[in-house]
């Protein structure tokens, strides 16, 4: 007799087989083909996620694991202004997951090494081989990340970036859509050499079904800033995984704004491997309606002493929208003097919304400071009355309080111009989604 677990494992492997049978291995040279084949095998062994998996209890992975893509209506193009339009940056554009050279800036002129994965993969020898699929594979334990493995096995394009010095001008990657039924699978590999600095901006709805993985190595004393806007097409589905390995005294700060979308799962897996590393991950999500489901799943490993990590996630939900947060801090015995902080909060604008939170701490060092909190609630009636008593109309007062609720997450964006852009986007969303 098969045990329940065995049956589930078989089902997971069956899903993986079916899914992989539907895609062909992207073209590439020896190293890329080896990495993809290795990922393919790992996925066949581990299987794709199902609802019974511990970290998929709150989010149904079905739309991600299905062989077919559920179409997503395109938001009228005139309805939006390009994100980060006012920021001086190197622009790189993918349309439905395909690199668009005509709309992208000159990669060679960036002052840093940027290549398309599609090009790097054709080479026999490339530095990216040391990272591609490697951080992803390392982070499969203790919790499996099969959708990232699927991405490693099937991504045909993405960016390969190596930064050797502090770079002031951000690199901006836009993921635009044209085809209502397209699937996009992109895989980025980013290496920040010691002492270097990079700001990466990402925006756009991506594709009807969008999968992106970024493997980022932040060298000693380097700083990686990441600001991402996941756009507004209501039917789109996105699964992202950010793998980060931080060296001594390095910094990584990642912020994501998610607006709309039928299903979004953003995973961050980060490991602090050198002392005095600083890692901040933050997110603001806004959703309106039962079709909105947004999930932040974070796993932070403190493997060195005197590191700091912060997780700040805020969600504003209305009319049946669902928000999920699963955040874990794991502190190894050698990671003394860890300073860990985690907060996840949802503002439920009516009683039909749901916030599902699973904060976890696992601490094996004895001299650490770790705090966590999770709340969900409505707009504070005393604050609302105070604003109204000063003549501020109820709708404007509510908008002010929603933005105030999100402020702690937005404060995690270091650059004021970028923070202001995000604030404007949120104000626009609130304007469009009134009670």
């Amino acid at each position, binding site marked *: 007799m098969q045990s329940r677990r065995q049956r589930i494992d078989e089902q997971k492997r069956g899903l993986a087989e079916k899914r992989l049978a539907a895609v062909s291995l992207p073209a590439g040279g020896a190293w890329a083909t080896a990495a993809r084949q290795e990922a393919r095998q790992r996925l066949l062994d581990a299987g794709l996620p199902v609802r019974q998996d511990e970290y998929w209890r709150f989010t149904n992975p079905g739309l991600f694991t299905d062989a077919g893509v559920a179409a997503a209506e395109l938001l009228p193009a005139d309805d939006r202004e390009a994100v980060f339009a006012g920021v001086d940056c190197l622009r790189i554009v993918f349309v439905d997951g395909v690199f668009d050279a005509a709309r992208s800036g000159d990669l060679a002129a960036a002052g840093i090494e940027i290549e398309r994965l599609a090009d790097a993969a054709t080479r026999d020898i490339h530095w990216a081989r040391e990272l591609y699929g490697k951080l992803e594979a390392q982070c499969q334990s203790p919790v499996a990340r099969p959708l990232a493995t699927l991405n490693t096995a099937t991504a045909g394009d993405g960016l390969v970036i190596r930064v050797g010095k502090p770079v002031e001008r951000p690199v901006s990657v836009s993921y635009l859509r044209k085809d209502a039924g397209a699937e996009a699978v992109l895989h980025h590999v980013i290496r920040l050499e010691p002492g270097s600095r990079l700001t990466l901006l990402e925006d756009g709805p991506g594709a009807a079904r969008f999968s992106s993985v970024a493997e980022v190595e932040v060298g000693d004393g380097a700083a990686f800033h990441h600001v991402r806007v996941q756009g507004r097409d209501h039917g789109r589905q996105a699964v992202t995984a950010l793998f980060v390995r931080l060296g001594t005294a390095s910094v990584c700060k990642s912020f994501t704004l998610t607006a709309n979308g039928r299903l979004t799962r953003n995973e961050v897996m980060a490991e602090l491997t050198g002392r005095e590393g600083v890692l901040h991950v933050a997110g603001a999500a806004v959703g309106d309606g039962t079709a909105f489901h947004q999930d932040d799943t974070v796993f932070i490993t403190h493997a060195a002493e005197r590191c700091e990590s912060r997780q700040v996630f805020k969600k504003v939900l209305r009319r049946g929208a669902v928000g999920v947060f699963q955040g874990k801090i794991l502190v190894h015995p050698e990671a003394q003097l860890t300073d860990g902080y985690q907060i996840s909060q949802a503002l439920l604008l009516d009683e039909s919304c749901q916030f599902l939170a699973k904060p976890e701490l696992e601490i094996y060092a004895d001299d650490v400071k770790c705090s966590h909190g999770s709340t969900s609630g409505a707009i504070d*009636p*005393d*604050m609302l*009355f*105070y*604003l*109204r*008593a*000063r*003549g*501020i*109309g*109820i709708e*404007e*007062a509510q908008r*002010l*309080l929603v*933005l*105030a*609720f*999100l*402020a*702690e997450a937005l404060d995690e964006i270091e650059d004021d111009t970028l923070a202001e852009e995000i604030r404007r986007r949120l104000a626009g969303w609130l304007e469009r989604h009134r009670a």
Partner: protein
Amino acid sequence: MLEIRNLHVKLEEEDKAILKGVDLTVEAGKVHAIMGPNGSGKSTLAYVLSGRDGYEVTDGSATLEGKDILEMEPEERAAAGLFLAFQYPVEIPGVGNMTFLRTAVNAQRKARGEEEMSSGDFLKLVREKAKALKIDAEMLKRPVNTGFSGGEKKRNEILQMAMLEPKMCILDETDSGLDVDAMKLVSDGVNALRDAGRGFLVITHYQRLLNHIQPDVVHIMAGGRIVRTGGPELALEVEENGYADILGAEVA
């Protein structure tokens, strides 16, 4: 200016009458004080006039310059010229004090069909008013009332009053939690706003505030009614003899 007639109010959630027939008229240019023991209904009167949820008016009326305010939303009452200085100003983390002030000033202007104040004019005005209340730039930048001391919160209330220039000001226990210096600052702020066109209703438990803000009329409230009305000497009588004596005399 403010006319309250036979006002009866109960708590919405329970069948408990709090105001049982309040009659009060505050004329433009006058300062009226309401004193009374705890639980007499003073703060309820302030909240009902400003439109806070949780109360139900069962009888009577309240008008501001002849307009029924009890039917208005809180923001409409504010735009009509009513201002409540809160006993416990609310902390609002994440909303900057300046943003708050500017939004309030412009919301009221808009509601009255006036043009919005330019940011230059606004900055100039807020700096000038803040200076008189010894509110520094740092305090203006911080989130509304967040982490403010008791005195700072009350000064911030008076700053809002000075910026909004209401016609009718209700001060709910503005002296609570103030030391002597802060009381002087706050009182000076209030006195600077005294004007022939503006009425004040000063709610206080103690007489001491009235040494700084000299009232024209003093009312004693007890059991949900105004039980005595007199001149400033009435406040001194309370200070001398306490409420028990006065209320005892009323009952007798």
